[in-house]
């Protein structure tokens, strides 16, 4: 008799599902999105995908070598990370970005914390956010036929109409993996195959939709909600990023709470934040909360659940079967939401009044000779035309708020004031009054709203920057980074704050354009 029989404790059978198998299924489910992304966006997109996946796998291999660990590239998790990262990048990304991002994702976000199963945030998102923070400008460049253009999300934030059909199909001007149709096919297939947890993806989508409907300012308008759902990686986040096993809670209730958190935070960040990447950040924040959720929400055996069916009793009604934490969290969210919107509504008028007063004060600063500020019918008509939407083209997201002609005591025109707001600031809106003298040259700038980075963007309010504009009228001004704005229309950017500088210069150009078009003597 053969004596080489193996011993083991029960069970002696194992399922066919293995870690590499799951990862390959996920890769396969991303295939349609990748193919559409590459076909629509061309060679650079293909290069981004290949570089990202290649770098991810290579860094995993090298990292394992350095750590003297067995190679783990065949579990395919690095490839999934690389592909997800690539799909969340712009097709016009410079090719160094996917390399740096993927290496960061694998080495720093995953490897340094112990590799597969030990990372505390989604590596692909960590890589993406690292790139966004490091190369903000290059990461947010999206071009159409070689010309920089706004993404649907930027348009949506600016209140413009967007083409939802294009967004759904993935032919809009957005990241490589922007085909919602393909994402849905892959994501739903994963859900049906039981690879991802339905309670995560659907609570993300649900939380986001409800929050967006309640606080998005447009109610439950299906077009508005659809546009938001189709843009900014909501679907990719819900089906592929939030459902990452390692960084999501293990219990059903925990997963539900986690999903709603992502949805709600994603919506809030999108409504009130300055960035279109609300979802990346909301998922990362929820990832960080996962250990906490798992500590406090522990699944009890069926027999210990409060509402476990006792022998001979009827089924408990649905309302009683909803777990206590869910009810509590819902109530807290509702109360907080109502309180916040109530405070906002009550203080809105006062805040507006004060804003208006501050604006008036700033007009006197920029045209000190004026005794009174007057308007004309032509200006009013022009203002009502442009108010509330982005002004002209080529000025970024600049809006004209108010415009007045400054007159002295004798009624002589001594200058003009245009109040303008740019939404392109690094951290929220930038509003300032631009004063012009009677000849149309810049007389002064006074900021009423500026929340940029201290020491960088905030230096827009210093004379070294805004002083450059005084006395000039050769609009449109151009921004240079050379440090020696020599040409008549060149303005030196604040070093380290080109986003802020660009926003201010664009807004100033918008104001000058408005002046030229509607206010200049004789117009």
């Amino acid at each position, binding site marked *: 008799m053969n004596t080489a*029989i193996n011993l083991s404790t029960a*069970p002696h059978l194992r399922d066919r599902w293995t870690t590499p198998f799951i990862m390959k299924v996920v890769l396969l489910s991303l295939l349609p999105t990748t193919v559409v992304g590459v076909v629509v966006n061309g060679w650079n997109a293909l290069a981004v995908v290949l570089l990202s996946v290649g770098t991810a796998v290579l860094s995993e291999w090298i990292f394992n070598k350095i750590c003297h660990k067995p190679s783990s590239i065949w579990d395919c998790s690095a490839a999934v990370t690389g592909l997800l990262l690539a799909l969340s990048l712009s097709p016009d990304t410079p090719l160094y970005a996917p390399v740096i991002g993927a290496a960061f994702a694998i080495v720093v976000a995953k490897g340094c914390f112990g590799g597969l*199963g030990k990372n505390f945030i989604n590596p692909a998102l960590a890589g993406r956010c690292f790139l966004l923070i490091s190369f903000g400008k290059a990461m947010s460049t999206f071009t159409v036929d070689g010309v920089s253009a706004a993404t649907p999300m930027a348009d949506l934030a600016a209140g413009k109409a967007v083409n939802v059909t294009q967004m759904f199909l993935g032919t809009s001007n957005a990241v490589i993996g922007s085909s919602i149709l393909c994402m849905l096919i892959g994501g739903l297939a994963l859900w049906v195959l039981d690879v991802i947890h339905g309670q995560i993806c659907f609570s993300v989508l649900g939380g986001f939709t409800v929050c967006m409907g309640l606080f998005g300012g447009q109610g439950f308008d299906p077009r508005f909600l659809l546009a938001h759902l189709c843009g900014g990686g909501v679907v990719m986040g819900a089906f592929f990023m939030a459902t990452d096993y390692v960084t999501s809670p293990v219990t059903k209730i925990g997963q539900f709470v986690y999903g709603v958190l992502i949805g709600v935070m994603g919506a809030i960040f999108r409504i009130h934040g300055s960035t279109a990447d609300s979802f990346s950040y909301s998922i990362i924040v929820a990832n960080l909360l996962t250990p906490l959720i798992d500590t406090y929400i*522990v699944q009890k055996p069926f027999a210990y*659940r409060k509402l476990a069916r006792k022998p001979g009793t009827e089924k408990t009604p649905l309302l009683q079967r909803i777990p206590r934490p869910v009810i509590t969290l819902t109530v807290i969210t509702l109360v907080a939401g109502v309180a916040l919107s109530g405070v906002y509504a009550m203080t809105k008028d006062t805040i507006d009044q004060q804003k208006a007063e501050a604006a008036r004060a700033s007009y006197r600063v920029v045209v000190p000779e004026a005794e009174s500020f007057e308007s004309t019918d032509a200006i009013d008509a022009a203002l009502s035309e442009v108010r509330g939407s982005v002004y002209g083209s080529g000025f970024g997201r600049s809006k004209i708020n108010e415009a007045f002609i400054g007159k002295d005591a004798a009624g002589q025109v001594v200058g003009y004031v245009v109040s303008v707001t740019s939404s392109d600031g690094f951290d929220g809106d930038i509003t300032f009054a631009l004063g012009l003298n009677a000849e149309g040259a810049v007389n002064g700038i006074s900021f009423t709203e500026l929340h940029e980075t201290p020491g960088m963007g905030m230096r827009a309010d210093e004379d070294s920057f805004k002083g450059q504009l005084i006395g000039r009228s050769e609009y449109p001004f151009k921004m240079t980074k050379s440090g020696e704005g020599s040409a008549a229309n060149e303005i030196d950017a604040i070093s380290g704050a080109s986003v802020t500088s660009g926003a201010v210069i664009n807004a100033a150009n918008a104001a000058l354009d408005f002046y030229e078009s509607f206010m200049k003597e004789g117009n």
Partner: protein
Amino acid sequence: MRNTFRGGVHPEGHKELSRELPLKLFDPKGEMVFPLQQHIGKPAKPIVKKNDPVLVGQRIAEADGFVSAHIVSSCSGTVKAIEKRRILTGALMECIVIENDGAFTPVEGMGQKRDASGLSREELLRCIQDAGIVGLGGAGFPTHVKLSPKDPAAIRYLIANGAECEPYLTCNDQLMRTRAKEIVEGLVLTLSLFPNAEAVICVEDNKPEAIEAMRAAAEGHARTKVLPMKTKYPQGGERSLIKAVAGVDFPISRLPADVGCVVCNVGTLYAIERAVVYGEPLFSQCFTLTGEAVAHPGNYIVRDGTSFAELLEAAGGLKEGVTLKKALVGGPMMGIAIGSLDVPIQKQNNGLTLLPEDPVELAEKRQTACLHCGRCTTVCPVGLSPQVMSDAALAGDYERYEKKLHGLECVQCGSCTFACPAKRPLMQTFKQAKAEIMANKRKEGGAKK
């Protein structure tokens, strides 16, 4: 929704290897070995001496106390020795060894049919106890103990377990197909112990012939019905069946009788019928010899004490050119891996599965870190979080394991371990944790005394 429980897994059945093969009685030629403890409870005490002649059906060891069971000889011959022999768990145990004369002469009066309808409750239980019947589903709990709950009137369901959810095994399927009448007879006798109970025969729906046979046999009997079950492991687990039939989940500290249920394997019911109607004690049971390494799989009625090796040899041995990598008593989900086939078959054994490949060995090569995928939580029939439990147990946090995670509720069905894509040894961890917790409790208890 079909009758079932929450969670569970779907291992490949492999039942086609033997499901159509009829039960054959196997008469061994070699010596027969009877371990003194083949049940849960105290070991039995031998009542024969060396060189004593014995007959088929003769009691050779007596139960020691209430929770214990008699041992009955399955062959005729002489007692060769009472000594320590290796049994299937790998341990040495005191065994009665009988030299088999090959004649299988029965004791007088055994096998004669008698009218059992007039038996009182006590007589019936005495009859079952005398026959040395234990639960044939695997655990081997003495049946007379199980059938004597504190309050027999409180029992609402008597569940006949014919689920046979364990992969490979098919002997209960064959037993139900060919001995349906006898099983129902045993069920009706048992049901007479519980005045308020309804008898429910549970069969997984992958055995349509068995369901049909049981339905036909159960027809006309009051308080008796057949309930097809969804095919899912561990459907045949006591708690899974109770969940499916009575809709109740209950903690491990409570017995099925506490929620008004008694579960008996169909094999046990058949044994009760043989014992009560024919006066034949338990010395043989149905048994499946199967697995990809076996040349000729089959379903057998085997005699206790037969060596696994002898049965295999008589059945045609291993497939040619195949190396035996794993030998399992029972099926691959709950069975015991044995290192040598030269050990005796015991009362509660219902199969031998021989595999040319070791799935565990293959899986261990594919082990990765835990992904937190939650498959273990989804499949757990008890509603535990195996992955969290495993973390706690490996960190030595038994306090959290026991109190917060209710780790001791684990029924050790192995579904989590089966389903784990990272091939983590979850159940092995839980077994160890449970052993340590119990040891600590005993230590604390001792210190207090």
